[in-house]
């Protein structure tokens, strides 16, 4: 079970990183980064389940709150705001 979950999640990370490397424009890379942060939040909660520590879920909470501010700032910069 753990092997299946880790293999599928690392494959998803690999696809998002490949799109982030050879995306043609900057918007593709921003979309790939957004996808990468969502996959990372889910992966942090799952690793907290595998290690069986309750404290480790706090890292995922802080990361889920703060990660979308960076994507939102990049979008405001591309739209001409900021």
């Amino acid at each position, binding site marked *: 079970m753990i092997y299946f979950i880790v293999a599928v999640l690392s494959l*998803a990370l690999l696809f998002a990183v490949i799109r982030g490397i050879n995306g043609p424009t900057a918007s593709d890379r921003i979309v*790939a980064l957004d996808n990468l942060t969502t996959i990372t*939040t889910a992966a942090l909660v799952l690793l907290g389940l595998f290690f069986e520590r309750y404290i480790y879920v706090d890292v995922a909470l802080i990361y*889920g709150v703060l990660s979308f501010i960076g994507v939102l700032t990049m979008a405001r*910069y591309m739209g*001409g705001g900021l």
Partner: protein
Amino acid sequence: MIYLEYLGYFFIVIGVVFLFLGALGIYRMPDVFTRMQAGTKATTLGALGTILGVGLVQPEWFWKTLIIALFIGISNPISSHAVARASHKSGLRPFVKKEDMDALADIKEAKEVK
């Protein structure tokens, strides 16, 4: 409650498969907007399934995982909407058949970014 644990692992496997399908859609789709559609809807469903599945496997963690799931359900469409509007403003156009399908066509483009 062994059935709750089985239900939680079922949700985790469904969520992980949907996260993988979202990343595959980002890799395979031809356009920015279709990539955004595949990568946001499937990824939001996958993250919600995974996090609520963890909350079902360990029932003491349920409220904190519910807070994380609620915040992902709010913040992921907001960031996708902002990125779509910014990339339309910076000059990218979607692949449409008819002319009046572009709903944001009357918005002025930003000057300096491309």
